[in-house]
């Protein structure tokens, strides 16, 4: 039934199942929203694939909506673990501006059906900066913290690597997208591997959080 799904889709499903399986441990933490978010991501991916592979129709409209949501969510999630007031304020201002910008870009400037690469450019750069904020806060923490046992460290690392990898081809998108068919296999290969990395670290982050909560109980 879902033969059109590829490896990275299974990692997304795995992250969703992990968040549901460990729900009782993460439900008291901001990571509980990952369960809903992963459900949203899996739904978008399956629908997107279905449109593309089965119906042979463009799925750009779907990703035009889902990509800003992803960046908004990750920005918000990271800000939940910031300690520095200034970092929190920067992220909050960004989230509001990005939300307004996404609305304008979709409904006024760019349109819903044309794929908006500007979201990727701004979003991935912002995520790299926010992950650096997290790392700065993380090393400045005044109590001993083991990075391997820190759920958000895993998620931030995954997000950082994903967006760092993505940022290169996203910044070259004007060149690459002009001859999309030629570059599609390479970009897809890079992107799919990065997705695997991201959702693997999210799954590990959820498991780590569950372990932490279980130990606390």
């Amino acid at each position: 039934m879902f033969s059109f799904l590829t490896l990275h889709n299974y990692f997304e499903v795995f992250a969703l199942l992990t968040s549901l399986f460990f729900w009782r441990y993460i439900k008291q933490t901001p990571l509980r929203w990952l369960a809903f978010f992963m459900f949203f991501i899996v739904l978008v991916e399956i629908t997107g694939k279905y449109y593309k592979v089965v119906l042979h129709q463009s799925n750009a409209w779907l990703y035009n909506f889902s990509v800003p949501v992803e960046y908004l969510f990750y920005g918000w999630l990271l800000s939940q673990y910031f300690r520095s007031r200034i970092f929190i304020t920067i992220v909050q201002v960004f989230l509001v501006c990005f939300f307004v910008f996404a609305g304008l870009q979709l409904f006024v400037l760019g349109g819903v059906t044309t794929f908006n690469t500007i979201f990727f450019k701004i979003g991935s750069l912002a995520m790299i900066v926010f992950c650096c904020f997290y790392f700065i806060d993380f090393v400045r923490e005044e109590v001993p913290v083991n990075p391997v046992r820190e759920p958000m460290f895993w998620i931030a690392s995954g997000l950082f690597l994903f967006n760092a990898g993505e940022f290169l081809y996203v910044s070259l998108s004007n060149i690459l997208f002009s001859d999309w068919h030629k570059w599609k296999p390479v970009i897809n290969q890079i992107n799919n591997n990065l997705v695997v990395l991201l959702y693997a670290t999210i799954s590990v982050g959820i498991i780590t959080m569950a372990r932490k909560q279980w130990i606390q109980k």
Partner: protein
Amino acid sequence: MDSEIAQLLIYFTIAILLLGIFLIVFVIIYRLRMNNYLKEKEQTRLLYEQTLLQTQLEIQEQTLKNISQEIHDNVGQVLTLAKLNLATTAVDDSGAMEKIKTSQQLIGKAIQDLRDLSRSLNTDYVEEMGLLRSVEYELELLKKTGSIRTSFNITGTVEKLDKQKELILFRIVQEAIHNVIRHADAGKINATVVFNNHTMEIFIEDNGKGFDIKPLATAGNRSFGLGIRNMHERATLIGARFSINSEPGAGTKLYLQVPLNETIDEEGRKN
């Protein structure tokens, strides 16, 4: 040409990812070093607090000892002399003689009370008698007042602790007993010492009016009264577990658990 550019794109992506991994590894190493630094800082702080507390206790003990000696050597001697003078005073008037005898008895009682007080304050007596005998003696003094019934039980094979530990434990027990006298309005006080394989447990219970411990416990150690905080700090100093349980109308139970073979070295490490 295109495939070369494609390869370059992949290589660049890999290079950026490697840079990213390098940064994450750097964060991990920095964090682990920071953890070590924080642990060392915490150890130094604990050691400093412990030394400070120990010094305070030593000063306190020295002060108590001085008071005890002063009572014994000065006030006690003066009263003994006064009693002797009264004993050798002969008066014809039978009413006056009766008063002298009463005064003699009163002075005798005062001498005895001061001697008891001197004993319980003096570190040397406590060290000489040992913890168990000192606690028993303290309870006997209390019993002698007639206002409160006391009982003292020991179970298990008695093991001796080092003198410093015994003195600190005695001061905790003494504080607990004084708290019962001052605040509990109790008719009975039970002290039990239990020796297990590796621990010594001390239970002190009274049947007094008790108090609501919840507001104190939730607000943390700082909000406890000075007496309870002192007991807690003293217990921490010798690595003992200390807890108090109380409810209004249900008396108070104090619990102390002391590791028998554990000592704390100069660097604050538990052995």
